[in-house]
């Protein structure tokens, strides 16, 4: 920072950033160009990286370039490999950037683009990137051990166990909600369903090629897969227009949900090289490619944001998700601002490849800044659409009905003028029968991306192709998550049950394998099915649960970071993780509380369940349930969701108590009491 030129550059960045933010935030009446949003974000991230990340590296976690990292100490050429920092950055980014940052911001756009943008930027700088960076360093100083392990050694075995249960619950909810996103996107869409179905034989072909024909040729496999996928994408239109083929690939939501469960079960017991690994190659490369393409598209097209900066729905009456700005915006945008899941990655493969501690800020903090760009781009893609179209796609059928005329009337009455023609025209443009009530982010993002890409290549004619490409990209990604998530949840279940029934731990046993997978699928399958048949469209109900769980995990990771800093006798700077931890706890606890106990049926699970239970007792059927059986189903779902939210709140509270206890103890200890490995004198091993 001593270089006067770099100081000058920083000042210039600050001025540019302030100007861009001012333009974004203060303009009223006229539409703002997306480039301002991008400029503001880039400036904020660069400044944060230069100042805050370096501050943390120097004064908080105190990165020491001379300290030997596990990658060097245990170098085996396999798991532990000192890796070039740019290569590792790519690895880390590919591991943390998922479907999450693409979905949350799209949903949050119902409050306008400004609240979402501000939370993404403030969140990433002070919470998300801080968490990723600190956990990476903390894990690196413990041989790259996992979050659960670290919590166990630094906060006690009970805290470790509670955290693990929390992680399992998150896995279940994540798989369920992401599967729901796919189901929502594919219901009644033969083009989409055919393309996504085609990925299965494609992946199997790749798998066989990479195992027997040309072993280990990842590039060749991926290229073959990509070509086949594109062919399936083009042929998908023919399928959707064919009267004989189209019905074979046209399913309603509940049927697709069952197909997903059967698929998830089979895929998770197959050998990894056959389906999971090859599809993961496609997923990863397609994801990175699409993110880059979207960024280039936005810069070239420079679209105007049609969504207002702030809509009236900040009062909590929005159709996409219920609840007021606080706490629900902060729950809805989890990934992109702060994602607890990253704590698992930052304490997973990445710390085992960190060449030097000095590279920690670049990988840990920088990687997360990069992900926040993805979130910003998703927000832009949703905001370049006509707001009327956005609301038509994201509002539940229970509110806007199922035909274009009715939807247009309802949405126009909210103040977002739209004609039925515009809705049907958009559906025709993208090659679908209807675009109504396709909540879940993916389709909206797809239309937004199609809108942007079509202006670069192909115009209106290729709109349908781009739309289905975007759907394919997200669905492919999510199917990999469903498959991998089912496996991870299975191993976690085996581990937990195995503590009581040791024989169940044996992962090579086929019986265990099948039982474990069935349990795992049953758990997420329940929530998926409940979501698909949910009167409010599922996303509305389940996304807050996902957001709460992901933020809860981030809260836990930040509590752990605070504990570690205090135990290092660095309590003067422990506010760095303690501050965002407090904020996340406030958000998750408030949101959890409201989801359970709010009197408003649209928000509170319990109130909603009571409303339906009361009607059921009178023998009445409330829309959109059609039979008394469905009514009973709604009541059960509400009770289960309330219990789930309650469990999350309990996990958070328990971790908070353990955290405070560990902090007080660390504070009282005269000497540092952390369990680091290979550090400077003063740590426990070297005392």
């Amino acid at each position: 920072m001593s270089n006067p030129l770099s100081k000058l550059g920083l000042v210039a960045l600050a001025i540019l950033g302030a100007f861009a933010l001012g333009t974004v935030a203060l303009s009223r009446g006229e539409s703002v160009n997306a480039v301002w949003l991008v400029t503001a974000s880039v400036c904020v991230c660069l400044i944060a990286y230069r100042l805050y990340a370096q501050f943390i590296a120097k004064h908080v976690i105190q990165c020491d370039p001379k300290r030997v990292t596990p990658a060097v100490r245990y170098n085996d050429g396999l798991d532990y490999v000192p890796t070039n920092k740019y290569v590792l950055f790519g690895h880390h980014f590919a591991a943390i950037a998922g479907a999450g940052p693409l979905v949350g911001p799209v949903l949050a756009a119902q409050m306008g683009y400004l609240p979402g943008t501000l939370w993404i930027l403030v969140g990433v700088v002070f919470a998300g990137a801080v968490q990723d960076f600190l956990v990476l360093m903390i894990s690196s100083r413990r041989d790259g051990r996992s979050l659960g392990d670290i919590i166990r050694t630094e906060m006690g075995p009970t805290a470790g166990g509670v955290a693990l249960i929390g992680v399992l619950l998150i896995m279940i909810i994540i798989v369920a909600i992401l599967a729901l996103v796919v189901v929502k996107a594919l219901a009644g869409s033969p083009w989409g369903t055919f393309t996504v179905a085609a990925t299965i034989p494609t992946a199997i072909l790749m798998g066989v090629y990479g195992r027997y024909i040309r072993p280990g040729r990842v590039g060749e496999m991926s290229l073959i897969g990509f070509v086949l996928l594109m062919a399936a994408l083009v042929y998908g239109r023919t399928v959707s227009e064919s009267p004989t083929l189209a019905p074979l690939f046209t399913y309603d939501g509940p049927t697709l949900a069952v197909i997903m469960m059967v698929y998830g079960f089979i895929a998770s017991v197959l050998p990894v090289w056959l389906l999971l690994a090859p599809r993961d190659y496609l997923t990863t490369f397609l994801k990175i490619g699409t993110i880059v393409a979207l960024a280039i598209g936005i810069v070239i097209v420079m679209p105007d944001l049609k969504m207002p900066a702030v809509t009236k729905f900040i009062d909590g009456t929005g159709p996409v998700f219920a609840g007021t700005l606080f706490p629900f915006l902060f729950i809805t945008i989890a990934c992109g601002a702060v994602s607890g899941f990253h704590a698992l990655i930052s304490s997973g493969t990445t710390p085992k490849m960190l060449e030097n501690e000095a590279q920690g800020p670049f990988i840990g903090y920088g990687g997360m800044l990069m992900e926040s760009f993805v979130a910003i781009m998703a927000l832009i893609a949703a905001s370049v659409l006509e707001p009327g179209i956005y609301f038509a796609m994201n509002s539940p059928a229970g509110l806007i009905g199922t035909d274009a005329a009715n939807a247009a009337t309802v949405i126009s009455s909210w103040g977002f003028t739209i004609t039925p023609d515009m809705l049907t025209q958009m559906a025709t443009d993208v090659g679908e029968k209807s675009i109504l009530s396709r909540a879940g982010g993916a389709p909206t993002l797809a239309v937004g991306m199609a809108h942007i890409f079509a202006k670069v290549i192909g115009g209106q004619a290729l709109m349908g192709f781009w739309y289905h490409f975007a759907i394919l990209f997200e669905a492919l990604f999510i199917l990999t998550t469903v498959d991998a998530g089912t496996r991870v949840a299975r191993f976690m279940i085996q581990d937990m049950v195995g503590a009581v029934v040791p024989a169940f731990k044996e992962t090579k046993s086929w019986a265990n394998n099948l039982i474990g997978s069935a349990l795992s699928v049953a758990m997420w399958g329940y929530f998926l099915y409940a979501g698909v048949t949910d009167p409010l469209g599922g996303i509305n109900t389940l996304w807050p649960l996902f957001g709460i769980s992901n933020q809860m995990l981030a809260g836990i990771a930040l509590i752990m970071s605070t504990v570690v800093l205090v135990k290092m006798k660095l309590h003067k700077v422990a506010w760095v993780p303690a501050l965002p931890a407090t904020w996340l706890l406030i958000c998750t606890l408030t949101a959890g509380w409201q989801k359970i106990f709010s009197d408003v049926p649209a928000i509170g699970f319990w109130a909603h369940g009571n409303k339906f239970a009361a009607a059921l007792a009178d023998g009445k059927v409330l829309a959109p349930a059609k039979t008394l059986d469905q009514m009973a189903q709604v009541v059960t779902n509400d009770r289960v969701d309330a219990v789930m939210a309650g469990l999350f709140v309990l996990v958070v509270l328990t971790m908070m108590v353990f955290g405070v206890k560990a902090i007080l103890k660390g504070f009282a200890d005269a000497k540092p009491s952390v369990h680091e490995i290979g550090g400077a004198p003063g740590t426990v091993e070297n005392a």
Partner: protein
Amino acid sequence: MLEEFKTFAKMVKQTGRLMVGIPDYENYVAHRRSIHPDLPVMSYEEFFRERQLNRYGGVNGRIARCC
């Protein structure tokens, strides 16, 4: 210039492969030869399979990627 481009291309390739959990094979071989000359070195095929299983085989329920 050509050299620089080659280095760059190699790095891109390494990044792409590491993104899907396959570290540099040459580096692995070099490491084994120099540190453990007495121990066997996996062929590329074995190395590839081992890494694949390691990434997705769920050792200790590890999570290789985010949602």
